[in-house]
């Protein structure tokens, strides 16, 4: 009885997150990131005279650079707290996670700090991506053969 009462009290006083508000903010910020990506691609295509595919790579590098730099200046943490999924699902979140891990472990030295811990947060993305892509590729090759 006492335990139930306590849990009810805890439930009552935990701050409720407004899910609708969070969702709308994430939708708008994510959409703006997508528009920025498309805008950068078109700028690169028209000013550097390269193909759309190359421009996509340039755009990803630009966004990673901006994400890393803003993380270093300390703005990005506040923005991620505000926009949540709107900023960590785009590629800037990848850059932010890597940069903040590198900065956090800097005090432990270059090799044991930055070198060993830089991929602490983003390593799971790379590892799961590679393993799943390998398995899916294997399935595709086994079912459909080599000609794609």
């Amino acid at each position, binding site marked *: 009885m006492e335990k139930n009462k306590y849990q009810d009290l805890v439930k009552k006083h935990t701050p409720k997150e407004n899910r609708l508000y969070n969702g709308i*903010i*994430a939708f708008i*910020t994510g*959409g703006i990131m997508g*528009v920025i990506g498309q805008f950068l691609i078109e700028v690169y295509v028209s000013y550097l005279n390269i193909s759309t595919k190359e421009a996509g790579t340039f755009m990803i590098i630009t966004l990673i650079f901006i994400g890393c730099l803003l993380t270093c200046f300390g703005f990005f943490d506040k923005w991620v707290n505000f926009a949540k999924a709107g900023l960590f699902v*785009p590629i800037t979140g990848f850059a932010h996670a890597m940069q903040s891990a590198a900065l956090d472990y*800097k005090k432990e030295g270059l090799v044991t700090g930055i070198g060993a811990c830089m991929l602490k947060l983003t390593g799971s993305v790379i590892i799961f991506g*590679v393993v799943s892509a*390998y398995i899916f590729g294997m399935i*595709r090759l086994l079912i459909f053969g080599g000609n794609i």
Partner: protein
Amino acid sequence: MIYLNAFLFAGLICLIGQIILDNTKLTAGHVTTLFVVIGAFLDTFSLYDKFVLWAGGGALVPITSFGHLLIHGALDKASEYGFIGLAMGMFDLTSTGIISAIVISFILSIFFNPKS
């Protein structure tokens, strides 16, 4: 028009991420990892290519495109060399993103100190 598509597609993916984050106990790391796996799965049957044609940069910016690029490079090489091609081409298209992220954040972390 493609700007609207980009806005809708990127926004929709972020909205799905936010819904997963709010309604389950998964953290941000889980969500991004899940999205990479979903992106790789969608491109196994060349579905994600159509999204890229439709939404342009809007489909390339979310982390799902990372999985898409991984398996795209792997299948490109696999059509030429067979099973060993999967391992040869896996990083063909993503290496620019991973390597620039590592180099940039290493160099920047030498010059900057963490803000507490």
